[in-house]
């Protein structure tokens, strides 16, 4: 292990845009959470955070404004665990979080980690949460760590893998101006979230019968639901891909890229599955992905851009996000896959949840998490209307014929 202490980090290539636009309206946050089998003990959780954070230097940072770029600076303060009072995926106020770009909150049996996307992606956040849960559980009994990653102190753990694996050739990702989800903006801090819990093995069997993967199956059902509500296409579902599965990186910072799965019109379910599967196999190509993210890395390395003052750059980046990035995506669907924990941890953890923030015009987004044969699909919404979510759940039952358990944070809305 490399114990050389890093005190500050440049933002990685994907993270550079987030500080430029993040606000209460568009917070750029996501949540990974674990629901335990017993109520959370705040004291144990706080000491688990205190034990875990020093081992993850890339998380123990705060965001600072430089003359040319934002950067992540070492944060010597203590990360305080809080009882959940805000809706999930609210804007992370640095004053409230003691300067950290994440916040650990708990409520009854749930431990949630809310992260600002400039800090890390879903993979990095899950690795941190897993180490946190392990450190929480070992205070109650001996548990072998198995393959669990309890440290993120190597140089490779905080490298900018985009830069490392970028090539000379680059290529534009296809840009299609798509239809968006419309509705009455709730103007709330945070989101409404609707969960569907189902048997992961049974869903996998169902996907095998259709001859596709779980992600393709769920993307197809979601695509059909979106098209039924929005009407005519084109629409695009952005599916983030963990590039660590393609490139030999173990970074705990951002290293993912999105596949934009387009669809022009509604079609039969079989035809939709075939269309989505073809798009996945066409876009999920190492060389293709490399060329696409290399383009962003190449932009970042241009001297004119590098020497432009941060404030001016932020205006351009904000503009690029609202005028370009958001125009090409209708909704986001993220599935980090199966979460592996030591066998003994099943005594403590029931299931995991993952959810994304929802803001104009990406008013509904989906996060999927699987642990110990329990899959939780979480649909976040930032609008009053629930038609897409209701239709997706209806279609989910229709096309999979599985029993689904629902819950949400609606309360007495």
């Amino acid at each position, binding site marked *: 292990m490399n114990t050389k202490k890093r*005190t500050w980090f440049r933002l990685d290539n994907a993270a550079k845009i987030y500080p430029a636009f993040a606000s209460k309206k568009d917070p750029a946050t996501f949540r990974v959470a674990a629901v335990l089998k017993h109520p959370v003990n705040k004291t144990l959780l706080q000491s688990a955070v205190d034990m875990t954070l020093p081992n993850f230097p890339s998380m123990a940072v705060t965001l*600072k*404004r430089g*003359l040319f770029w934002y*950067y992540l600076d070492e944060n*010597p303060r203590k990360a305080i665990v809080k009882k959940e009072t805000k*809706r999930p995926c609210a804007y992370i106020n640095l004053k409230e979080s003691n300067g950290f770009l994440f916040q650990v909150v708990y*409520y009854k049996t749930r431990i949630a980690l809310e992260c600002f996307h400039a800090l890390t992606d879903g993979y990095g956040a899950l690795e941190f949460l897993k180490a946190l849960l392990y450190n929480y559980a070992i205070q109650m009994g001996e548990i072998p760590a198995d393959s669990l990653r309890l440290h993120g102190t190597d140089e490779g753990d905080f490298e900018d893998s985009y830069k490392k694996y970028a090539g000379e050739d680059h290529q534009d990702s296809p840009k299609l101006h798509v239809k968006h989800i419309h509705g009455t903006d*709730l103007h709330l801090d*945070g989101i409404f979230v609707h969960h569907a819990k189902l048997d992961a093995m049974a869903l996998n069997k169902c996907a095998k019968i259709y001859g596709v993967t779980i992600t393709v199956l769920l993307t197809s059902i979601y695509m059909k639901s979106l098209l039924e509500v929005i009407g005519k296409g084109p629409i695009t579902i952005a599916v983030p891909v963990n590039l660590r599965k393609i490139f030999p990186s173990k970074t705990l910072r951002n290293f993912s890229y999105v596949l934009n799965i387009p669809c022009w019109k509604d079609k039969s379910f079989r035809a939709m599955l075939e269309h989505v599967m073809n798009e996945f196999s066409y876009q999920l190509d190492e060389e293709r992905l490399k060329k696409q993210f290399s383009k962003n890395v190449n932009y970042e390395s241009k001297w004119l851009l590098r020497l432009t003052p941060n404030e001016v750059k932020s205006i351009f980046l904000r503009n690029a996000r609202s005028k370009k990035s958001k125009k090409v995506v209708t909704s986001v669907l993220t599935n980090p896959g199966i979460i592996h924990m030591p066998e003994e941890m099943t005594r403590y953890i029931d299931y995991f949840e993952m959810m994304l923030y929802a803001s104009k015009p990406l008013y509904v987004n989906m996060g999927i998490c699987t642990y110990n044969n329990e899959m939780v699909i979480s649909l976040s919404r930032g609008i009053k209307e629930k038609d897409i979510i209701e239709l997706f759940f209806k279609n989910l039952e229709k096309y999979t014929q599985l029993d689904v358990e629902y819950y949400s944070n609606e309360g007495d809305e």
Partner: protein
Amino acid sequence: MEYPKYMDKPRKPYFKWVLILNILSVSLCFLVPWYIYIQGSLLFLQFSYLILKKFKGYKAVCAITFALMLMMLQFDAINLDLSWSIDYVIPSLFMFLVTLKFIIVMVKKHKWAHYDQIHILFIAFSIVMAILMIVGLIEAIIMGSITLAIFAASLVAIWIRVGRKYYRSLLKFIHV
């Protein structure tokens, strides 16, 4: 699995209205010149409100002083001549901030990370001042020189006091 009952209130889109009112208010200054005193004061109050909501301590003093500089510039703009503000108001307020900072760094045992960013912004500000002096926009050369000299002296003193951290902070701030 349950969620708590949230006590949230919808965000109100005040910003748009405040911006429109400010644009109207600035436009009125062109029709009624004396109104600039009211407009400048209102803008200063708005800034002060936002600053005090966000910052405290030395950061708040700094931000309010900069808001004050802006208000003075506005008042001076009534004659379309900013020389009084540029030559005297801005340097003297800047001198006040630098001296205050110098005293705090010397007297209080805070971590350098508390002040590094503001200090680096001062460096940028003094570079702008020096450029304005060179191109002749700042005509009160003696006043400007005294300000820059005080700043340079504080730089050296703080450098000696803070040591290598000073250099590291500077490097982080200006990384490209």
